[in-house]
């Protein structure tokens, strides 16, 4: 995350010297190499990146890991549930060597398996939505900036309107009218639909200034068409901000997905999701079985935090001068 400002400043001044001292001959470095060096020195960001990697592995290997533990996510274990209170037997939600994260109150389904499969759902939807929103944001943002005029007004106003909407209610409304549509796809589209303006605004701003640069003029004077200039000349120069903001938009999308699941319009049961578990916990279990909210809540927290840390570090490395919100 926040590398103190003085550290970044001294890094930049120290960098050229390091080049001269480190190797005999002077070596050229691409901007990407410099960014990578800067990122590598940011321990917090690397830590965040490491956690992200582990989480992705955790999600991908969910079937293997649950087999290792021995209990699937949909198997009921009523024998592990207290018949009067419906809570898991044993301390802290029934955590034991057999059930690593305990079991779900009421049903006795294994929490470790449900958290692992929930990671699959959350990451798939968040990353899918991010991909769609980056595509929309980058394309529309570039077009708006380059073409200008009516296209710019249309795209910019649309972005303003979307940003000013209480989007959760729109998402609820959409799910209400399309209950039979593939829910995961619907969630990806809804989340992408509300998050693309964040990318779009930034890309539009950057593309506006790139449009006036000499290399664009050069390309135009050599007879390049608008599409060529937009997507082969301007867009490649915007890879760094696109990368940074997609990393930073993933955690927001994860929070949106869990929020929708929390409100009961996420993926449909029996598919497990972190938000749905939180919603079950909120309906009363959290008072007598706090483990039931701590595991999914903690999973959301760790995931979002890791992406935020990595994204902030990436921003410092790629774009040290930009102000960060």
């Amino acid at each position, binding site marked *: 995350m926040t590398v103190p400002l003085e550290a970044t400043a001294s890094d930049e001044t120290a960098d050229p010297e390091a080049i001269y001292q480190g190797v005999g001959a002077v070596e050229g470095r691409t901007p990407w190499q410099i960014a990578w060096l800067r990122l590598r020195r940011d321990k917090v960001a690397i830590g965040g990146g490491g956690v992200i990697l582990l989480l992705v592995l955790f999600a991908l290997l969910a079937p293997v890991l649950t087999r290792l533990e021995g209990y699937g996510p949909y198997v009921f274990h009523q024998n592990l549930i207290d018949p009067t209170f419906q809570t898991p037997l044993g301390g802290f939600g029934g955590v034991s060597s057999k059930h690593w994260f305990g079991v779900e109150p009421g049903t006795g389904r294994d929490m470790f398996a449900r958290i692992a499969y929930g990671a699959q759902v959350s990451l798939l939807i968040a990353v899918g939505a991010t991909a769609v929103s980056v595509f929309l944001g980058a394309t529309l943002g570039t077009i708006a900036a380059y073409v200008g005029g009516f296209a710019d007004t249309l795209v910019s106003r649309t972005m303003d309107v979307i940003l000013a909407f209480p989007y*959760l209610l729109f998402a609820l409304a959409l799910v209400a009218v399309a209950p039979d549509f593939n829910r995961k796809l619907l969630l990806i589209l809804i989340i992408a639909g509300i998050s693309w303006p964040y990318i779009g605004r930034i890309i539009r701003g950057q593309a506006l200034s790139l449009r006036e640069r000499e290399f664009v003029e050069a390309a135009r004077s050599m007879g390049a068409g608008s599409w060529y200039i937009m997507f082969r000349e301007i867009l490649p120069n915007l890879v760094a901000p696109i990368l940074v903001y997609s990393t930073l938009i993933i955690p927001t999308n994860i929070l949106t997905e869990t929020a929708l699941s929390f409100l009961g319009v996420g993926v449909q049961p029996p598919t497990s999701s972190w938000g749905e578990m939180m919603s079950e916990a909120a309906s009363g279990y959290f008072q007598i079985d706090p483990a039931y909210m701590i595991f999914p809540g903690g999973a959301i927290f760790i995931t979002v*935090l890791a992406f*935020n840390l990595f994204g902030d570090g990436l921003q410092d490395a790629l774009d040290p001068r930009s102000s960060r919100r």
Partner: protein
Amino acid sequence: MVRFIIRRLLGSLGVLIAASIVAFGIFFLIPSNPAVLYSGRTSSPATIQATKVRLGLNDPAYEQYYHYMKGIVVGRDFSSGPGDVNHCPVPCLGYSFKSNEPVTSILWSRLPVTFSIIIGAAVLWLVSGVAIGVLSALKRGSVIDRGAMIVALAGVSLPVFFTALILLKLVSYDWKILPNVHYVNFADDPLNWARNLILPWIALAFLFSALYARLTRATTLETLGEDYIRTARAKGLPERTVIGKHTLRAVLTPIVTIFGLDLAQGFTGAILTEKAFGFVGLGQTAVSAVDQSDLPVVIGVVLLSTFIVVIANLIVDLLYGVIDPRVRLA
């Protein structure tokens, strides 16, 4: 200033119309059958046809939209024939499919809950976020700064509902400081109203407070490096004036901009907070309406909340014009 206000008003009106078209359009884009929903699945075709006539569902979409919007402004009559006219007074949002209550009165009874949560939380997050941010910037690198920024980073990564449940579990259930949190009407008992809302306010404000503290800290640090601050100090102004007047004014400008944008987000947060605390506000109304396919209520909630956010944005915009005169010229 008048031109500025008029321009903003027109802009807001545009957003509202766009929102209403989208909200209304959603229900025509995807095949669903409101008449069947309204009269129940087991009704005879004749009943369904009567319902369609009554609700005007046989008209083309744009005509239905026109009637709906007209209903909001001047009221509307539902009629299935002479002698059976049901007048729905202004602002008419139709009737709930499930309870047959006017949507307007349902929303009217739920609105105060959501409103109470968001207003208190917004005040809390503005004040605490800016205060913590300025303090961190002034004590840069100190334990306070580092501590505050670590908590702030955790804050932006915590889902609202998780914070809410932790607070409920610890403060209300385990420590019994604020036991039995439930919504009390402001008019009935203002003290109890505030007492029961303390936890929801903290839960919702925590996230935004963290965001604002980080932003304020960054802007304050930037501003403190400006020449005019050096000048202010050089001419011997007391530090209190330099920070409280010169710095704070520059810091508040971006905060106010973001505050306007965040109101929509705050609304979303309030819905989640409601659910975590078991309050029945607009969010819960929308969620149960979605569960029961009660489309008029869903549309009503969407329109009303957009309306509130747009109005709030308008106020912030105008306020912004007062704080920073340059905005008016843009």
